[in-house]
């Protein structure tokens, strides 16, 4: 009998006997499902965050904030500076000949959260006239756009889901004045969809401010960025930083993503070690119940490799079952489920968890590794057991 045939027949026989050892086998499956479930769930937050930020990014869009401001809320750009920025070279011009740039003012307001009723911070963004041309992904799904010089806002869909009383037509009381919600917008679920938008002038007069926090511009082409940036940094009247939108968004979420990944792999790693011990236990007990059977096979002429492979096959099958199970549980329980977190610069951000096939793949890979380590020692032991003693079942 060829080695491969031997391996195949021993493996099939072994796998068929798994139901008889259901208790020990389920330890591997459940243990690994636990590890993979936790790992995949936490990594899904990282995935959700990066999906959210990359969803709407465009290579030909740039954000300008004042030098040293890591968040928009810490930035200040004077009216004069904003004017200079809007006139800088490299910016695309609309059909009316005006630059496609939006100088924006950001205010943070407290609103009650749906889930707890406690307050969370919400960004109220005042935008310039060209804002919708700069961000064409923002589109109204209900109502109309805010009017000029009236206290009207449009509310993002994500924000509406997260906070109370943000339906069309409702009123918000902010700093003793009434604001009316006149529209609901969507923008592919990017961070702007978790904001309220109004006109910059309206916001500035309501909050008695005369500065902007950032300027968003649409460039002639992605390659115009260098020209645009050098024009701003070369101007001694400006103390601002220009960043590509992708870089800016990444910088906003990077600290949190890194922290989450570290937590995921740390906790996943510790749990994996625990699961390895569980798998070792289960596999040792699996071969110890099969001692006589394995010895008989060896006496009949089956090689050690066939026995070793069959043990590995059993462990891998159970591990993959556990890995896929854990991944599916994470998917069923958490996919699309939003966790709220700090969106950087004090605003509350609701991040949808994204469990995809890649992530489940990572989980199954971990499961296989745990299964392999758990099977290695028992397999060697099974192959090495002295036949005479093993046959007598000692």
């Amino acid at each position: 009998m060829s080695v491969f045939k031997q391996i195949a027949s021993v493996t099939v026989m072994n796998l068929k006997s798994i139901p008889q050892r259901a208790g020990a086998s389920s330890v591997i499956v459940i243990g690994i499902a636990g590890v993979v479930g936790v790992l995949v769930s936490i990594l899904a937050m990282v995935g959700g965050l990066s999906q959210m930020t990359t969803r709407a990014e465009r290579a030909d869009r740039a954000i300008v904030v004042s030098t040293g401001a890591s968040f928009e809320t810490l930035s200040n750009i004077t009216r004069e500076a904003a004017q200079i920025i809007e006139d800088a070279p490299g910016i695309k011009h609309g059909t009316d000949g005006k630059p496609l740039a939006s100088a924006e003012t950001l205010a943070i307001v407290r609103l009650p959260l749906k889930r707890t009723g406690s307050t969370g911070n919400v960004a109220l963004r005042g935008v310039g006239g060209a804002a919708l041309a700069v961000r064409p992904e923002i589109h109204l799904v209900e109502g109309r756009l805010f009017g000029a010089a009236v206290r009207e806002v449009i509310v993002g869909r994500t924000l509406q889901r997260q906070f109370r009383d943000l339906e069309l037509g409702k009123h918000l009381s902010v700093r003793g004045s009434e604001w009316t919600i006149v529209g609901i917008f969507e923008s592919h679920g990017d961070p702007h969809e978790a904001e309220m938008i109004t006109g910059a002038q309206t916001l500035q007069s309501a909050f008695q401010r005369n500065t902007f926090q950032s300027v968003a511009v649409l460039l002639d082409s992605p390659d115009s960025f260098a020209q645009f940036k050098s024009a701003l940094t070369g101007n001694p009247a400006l103390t601002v930083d220009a960043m590509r939108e992708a870089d800016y968004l990444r910088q906003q979420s990077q600290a949190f993503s890194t922290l989450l990944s570290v937590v995921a792999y740390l906790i996943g790693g510790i749990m994996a070690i625990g699961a390895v011990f569980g798998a070792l236990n289960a596999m040792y007990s699996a071969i110890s119940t099969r001692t006589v059977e394995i010895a008989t096979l060896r006496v009949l002429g089956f090689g050690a490799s066939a026995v070793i492979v069959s043990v590995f096959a059993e462990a891998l099958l159970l591990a993959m079952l556990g890995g896929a199970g854990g991944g599916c549980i994470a998917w069923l329980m958490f996919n699309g489920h939003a966790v709220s977190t700090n969106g950087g610069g004090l605003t509350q951000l609701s991040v949808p968890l994204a469990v995809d096939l890649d992530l489940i793949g990572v989980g199954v890979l971990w499961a296989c590794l745990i299964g392999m380590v758990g099977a290695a020692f028992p397999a060697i032991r099974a192959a090495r057991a002295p036949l005479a003693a093993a046959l007598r079942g000692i």
Partner: protein
Amino acid sequence: MKFLPLVWTSLWRKKARTIFTLLSILIAFLLFGLLQGVNAWLNAFGSGSNANRLYVASRVSEVQPLPSAYLSQIEGVPGIRHATYIAGIAGYYQEKHNNLVALATDVPAFLSLYPEWQVVPDQLAKMSRTRDGAIVAAPLMHAFGWKIGDRIPLRTSVMRQDGGADWQFQIVGTYDVPSIPAEANRILVNYAYFDEARLLERGTVWAFVVSVDDPARSAQICAAVDALFVNSAYETVTQDEKAYVQGQLRQLGDVSLMANAIVAAVLFTLLFLTGNTMMQSVRERTSELGILKTVGFSDRSVTALVLVESVLLCVLAASLGLAAAAAVFPVVAALGIGGSALPLKVVVAGLVMAVVLALASGLPPAWRARRLAIVDALAGR
């Protein structure tokens, strides 16, 4: 007690299995200790805070400025002993990742509100004489290699009247917070100098800090302060220090929800593992248990033997795991998450959890041992 050696021997009947189970439980409780430790630390955040101190911030949001002129009105509220304002200057020193926050305030008034911040009296006097002076947290001095007398440039986003956004301060002293070392990470500067030199938002502050004579009355005082400014353009929200800190922390997100979910997943998995181990061990010992019953052990004592074995294994492993967590916890704390020591509360909860786990996983095998008929057991059926 006299049966303890018996339980101990049967526990080690199969060394490899017991050791692997022990290690799995150990790891699970290491994780339990760390996660719940961080959780407890988060929940207790600000509990070291001073119940005498209240914070007055804008109702609109924490970053919305308030007029500094509110101070005299706030001071007039009965029951308030001291009050001052704070404004922040966020920026960095030399490199972008060296983030720093300078607090612009009335420094002597501020320090009388924070008696735990310790400054040498001479240095405080010097601070009052030096308009652009700064009192820097001792750990920051150490980290950046600063000395008293140095002039430190901060690159900020707060514009100066002369057009720049770089601020220079002269270090005249240092402070320490021996009770909460992690709190020593700020730079104190004179508000008067800062407000005069800045271009925008002059005459405004981030928040007011007040101390009250009687913490029991702080709820009324909070309401009284907020009532002063109701319906003005700058409405306020006044909270005690603990509520304020917890509110800031909640912005971080559902950390405790996550930690609890993970712990639940770990313990659930563990239940299967230990349950299986105990079941196997009882099954293998069927004939031994039969002999025990033959020599006169009652059903109840056999059940107890199995349960005690399970409790012994779980509690032993959990103690080792929690000890490991206590040893690792300060290391995690050094990364900025978690306190200096694992709270006793967590250790106790862990041990209770271990006993519950042991009973839950030991019950089915114990039941089996109890129901065992001597004839069947001895026949190995």
